[in-house]
């Protein structure tokens, strides 16, 4: 089978970001927190590939550690939101009736709450932190996964093998776990890939506003908010983190689109 171009292109971009993130755990060109005021605003050179910031910290090292931060936040937030959402979606689909109505109403409610508002509430009540940002991003993912999993699960419940499992006396819980969940994994994984992109954007925005990663933890969003105050001195510092965000978001977006094309060929070319 020929893999779609968007999938391949997305995979290459994500490979670069994830590799940078993983490598940063073991190695960065310089320490990302080490300050060297005498080297502040250094131009790109062999020593500092993209130069240094206002405190003389190496920009490449900060970008790499920030990639690790972004990928981690996206993974944890989408995993938590996805797991809770899928679980609730499966319950809604298996039990139906009033429980399904209630869960779907809850999902609708979740859509009324943008992540930013949720993060603002948490920050006001508990203080700004990366964990609260993760909670806010996970929260907005719950209703999305409820809808996707319940929609797909409702289709699977109509299949012959599910009727056969019911006839064999399996409980709804067993059927959901053994037959429904494995068969709805494709749309869930596609959705998760797309949501990674959204999570990276959300984390960047929250960190930019001071509601996410706190100093000295580097984050692309926070790097941008620091760079904004130095725009007249070093405009290039406001460029690099943004490019990293775009590369990750486009990468995950294309990967998700590609995966969708692979798992659901009917949609090919309509988007």
């Amino acid at each position, binding site marked *: 089978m020929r893999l779609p171009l968007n999938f391949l292109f997305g995979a290459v971009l994500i490979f670069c970001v994830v590799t940078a993130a993983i490598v940063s755990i073991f190695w960065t060109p310089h320490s990302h927190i080490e300050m060297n005021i005498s080297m502040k605003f250094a131009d790109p050179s062999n020593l500092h590939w993209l130069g240094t910031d206002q405190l003389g910290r190496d920009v490449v090292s900060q970008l790499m550690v920030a990639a690790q931060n972004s990928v981690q936040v996206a993974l944890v937030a989408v995993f938590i939101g996805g797991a809770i959402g899928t679980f609730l979606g499966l319950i809604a689909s298996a039990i139906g009736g009033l429980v399904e109505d209630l869960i779907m109403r809850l999902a609708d409610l979740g859509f009324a709450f943008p992540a930013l508002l949720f993060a603002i509430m948490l920050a006001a009540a508990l203080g700004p932190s990366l964990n609260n940002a993760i909670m806010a991003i996970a929260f907005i993912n719950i209703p999305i996964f409820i809808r996707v999993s319940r929609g797909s699960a409702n289709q699977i419940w109509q299949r012959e093998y599910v009727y056969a499992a019911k006839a064999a006396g399996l409980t709804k819980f067993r059927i959901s776990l053994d037959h429904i969940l494995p068969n709805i994994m494709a749309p869930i994984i596609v959705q998760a890939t797309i949501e990674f992109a959204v999570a990276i954007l959300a984390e960047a925005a929250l960190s930019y506003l001071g509601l996410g990663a706190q100093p000295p933890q580097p984050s692309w969003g926070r790097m941008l908010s620091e760079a*904004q105050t130095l725009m007249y001195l070093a405009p290039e510092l406001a460029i690099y983190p943004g490019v990293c965000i775009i590369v990750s978001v486009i990468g995950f977006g294309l990967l998700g689109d590609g995966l969708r094309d692979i798992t659901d060929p009917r949609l090919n070319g309509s988007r």
Partner: protein
Amino acid sequence: MYFFIFNRIANFIVTIFVVSIIVFAAMNVLPGDPALTILGLDATEDALDALREKLGLNEPLIKRYFSWIINALSGNFGVSHSFSVPVSELIIERLPLTVSLAISGMLCTIFLAFVLGVFAAANHQRSGDWGVMIISQLGIAVPAFWLSILLVLLFAVKLRWLPPGGFPGWESPIDALRSLIMPTLSLTLVQSAVLARVTRSSMLEIKRQDYIRTAQASGLHPRRILWLHTLPNALIPIVTIIGMQFAALVTGTIVIENVFYLPGLGKLIFQSISNRDLPTVQALVMLFAAIVIVANFIVDIAYSFIDPRLRERT
């Protein structure tokens, strides 16, 4: 029809009610003592007790919730801890700026997205279509706050055409409008990328329908088919997205106001967070959530006018 509207209104009221409970609970049930956050760690126990009494924090939660909601319905959101004026006054003072930003952003978004989406659909699988798709893919990936920074770099730092931020007030309308150009542009460019894609795919979907082929076969002018048959039917998903986008746009104004130092509600919410001014944060979060819910409600009602089938189904 009446049943449909009644159903939606009931839904709307329940949603607002539940959201108000969530907002109140998040601010009042989560660990943390507002009196302690206002007075600081050095405060004496007596001072803390007195402040708790003054703020009504010793009352039962349910009583506090109902008095908050009843007062809020009459426009009384309490007194701001940091500004020592009624929160409603703060909101009224800053509302015009946020509303003008959101409305101008929405109108420009709809206009730009429609032009790009219809153009791309009309040139399906030709260079114009690919161009629009690549631009919109980029637009979706660009964070609005980064785009704003880039615009400031270009128009304020390099070209010096527009102010980098701040708001001179409505007394000088020309300067006020000038300072809103970049914020509106940042909101518009990002939001219209999504809407343009939806407009394009929705138009393409409808163009494949049998009734369009029939209209073509019966010799109708292509422009007549576009305006009378394709566009009205393509509107349904577009209106859904416009509703969702308005929500994104309203919260987008919170970010954009902070990027451009605009004294609107978004800026106020962040000032209130850093001042630990809970009544103001609570009122503003509720206000923003209510705007999002009202937008969704209007979309629901708009549906039934665009597509009569939806009324009958409910």
